[in-house]
């Protein structure tokens, strides 16, 4: 990958709102956001834009953040309409960066309202330290690419007994289920009354932490771990008592998939999603992280 150094003159070409012309070299190879924005005279990756804002190289007061948000939403929506596979990592990162921008703009518009803020500390971080962190992260990403290559090579090697992890003869033509598939399947599990129910904001009835523990218990009880068959999503959700708990189940499922504790698969020609517990969920770590007791399922204060 070409290592590009961007001098202040280039920054000037990028954005007519540049605030100062001190010598400032940045390493654009560190900025890889897939979402690009065009605002005033700047056209480039979103993460580079946010970096320049934080370094006070761009005047956020003269830039419409609303336009950036609308642009991002349009890119995500158009991609979804076109049926393109959505890179959730990139989309999530873009949303986080945009939220950062909104926060920074609000601070500029309403000074003095934010005190002892962690972001204040981050904004005061010396440029050299920030660049060093970016370079460290860049190195970690490069090494992650190297590991991904090693993983691909390793997966081409099979050994005796290996097939049992993957060959489930009764489930041919299986593919991984995406978040969109999970969402569509969840909607399909709702009854007509539940789907038409008027939604209102209310106090949380079921905590996600407790529901995560409950779902792990259900998956373990039905024997869907290790080399045992998977369980249909319908069967797992049948344990939900009402619509609120179904919603909690769905959010808990997303948490488990995010942490790679559960995998969701489906046949190519079917909407029926099956869930499988991966490995042994570290319930002790779950208790410390979520504050939920894995045995009782109740929320308790984490110790230590």
């Amino acid at each position, binding site marked *: 990958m070409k290592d590009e150094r961007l001098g202040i003159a280039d920054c000037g070409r990028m954005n007519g709102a540049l605030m100062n012309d001190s010598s400032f070299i940045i390493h654009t190879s560190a900025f890889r956001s897939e979402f690009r924005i065009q605002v005033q005279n700047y056209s480039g990756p979103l993460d580079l834009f946010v970096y320049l804002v934080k370094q006070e190289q761009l005047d956020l007061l003269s830039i419409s953040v609303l336009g950036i948000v609308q642009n991002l939403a349009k890119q995500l929506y158009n991609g979804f309409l076109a049926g393109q596979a959505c890179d959730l990592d990139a989309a999530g990162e873009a949303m986080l960066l945009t939220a950062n921008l909104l926060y920074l703009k609000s601070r500029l518009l309403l000074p003095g309202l934010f005190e002892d803020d962690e972001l204040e500390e981050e904004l005061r971080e010396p440029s050299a330290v920030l660049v060093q962190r970016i370079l460290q992260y860049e190195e970690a990403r490069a090494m992650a690419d190297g*590991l991904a290559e090693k993983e*691909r090579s*390793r997966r081409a090697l099979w050994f005796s007994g290996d*097939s049992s992890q993957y060959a489930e003869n009764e489930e041919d033509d299986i593919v991984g289920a995406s978040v969109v598939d999970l969402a569509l399947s969840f909607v399909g599990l709702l009854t007509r009354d539940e789907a038409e129910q008027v939604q209102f904001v209310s106090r949380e009835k079921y905590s996600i932490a407790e529901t995560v523990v409950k779902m792990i218990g259900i998956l373990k009880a039905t024997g869907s771990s290790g080399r045992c068959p998977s369980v249909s999503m319908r069967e797992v959700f049948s344990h939900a008592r009402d619509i609120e708990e179904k919603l909690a189940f769905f959010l808990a499922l997303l948490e488990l998939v995010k942490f790679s504790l559960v995998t969701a698969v489906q046949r190519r020609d079917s909407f029926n999603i099956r869930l499988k517990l991966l490995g*042994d969920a570290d319930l002790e770590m779950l208790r410390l992280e979520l504050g939920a007791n894995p045995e009782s399922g109740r929320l308790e204060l984490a110790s230590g």
Partner: protein
Amino acid sequence: MDVRRVLTEIGDEEQRAESSLDADTVRMVIEAILFAATDPVSEQQIFGLFGRKVSEDEIKNALSSLWEGYEKASSSLQIVKIGGGFKLTTRAQYAPWIEKFFTRRREVSLTKASLEVLSIIAYQQPVTISQIDYVRGVDSAGVVRGLLAHGLVTVKGRKKAPGRPLLLATTDKFLDHFGLSDLDSLPRPDDRIY
């Protein structure tokens, strides 16, 4: 019953068993173990299996001979050094056929976030979660939890610092997952001049 004769026969049987552990037998026993085992088999495990009947050098020679045998025979099998031990695996070029036979590709691979966290742990171990968070700029506790559940990382103790945070390190399963013989085989980033 002539006890002396029975004892002599038992002694002869044991002597025959010991003397049957010639180089060929050792090599074939190791081959059988590598075939049957699902995890990498270390030299220490093989040495423990034979007891004092076979020396470490004989075991090394047997492994070397096995490896050469598979290379010379142009076999679809090979012996690789992975995860601190040895494993009998198929060669990479036959993977498409095997996947076709089992009618399923290996879809399970680590996410980008997991690979980033693993790379930080692998190269800086032992390392704390806060150190990982510092490099990535985001909360990595959830990803670490998943890696712990899969056995790719483990807790190696606690750092002697305020809060006594957990120290994380990679495991032999990590080496096996990426086909590495040891941590020295980790891919190195290109030397860059910034």
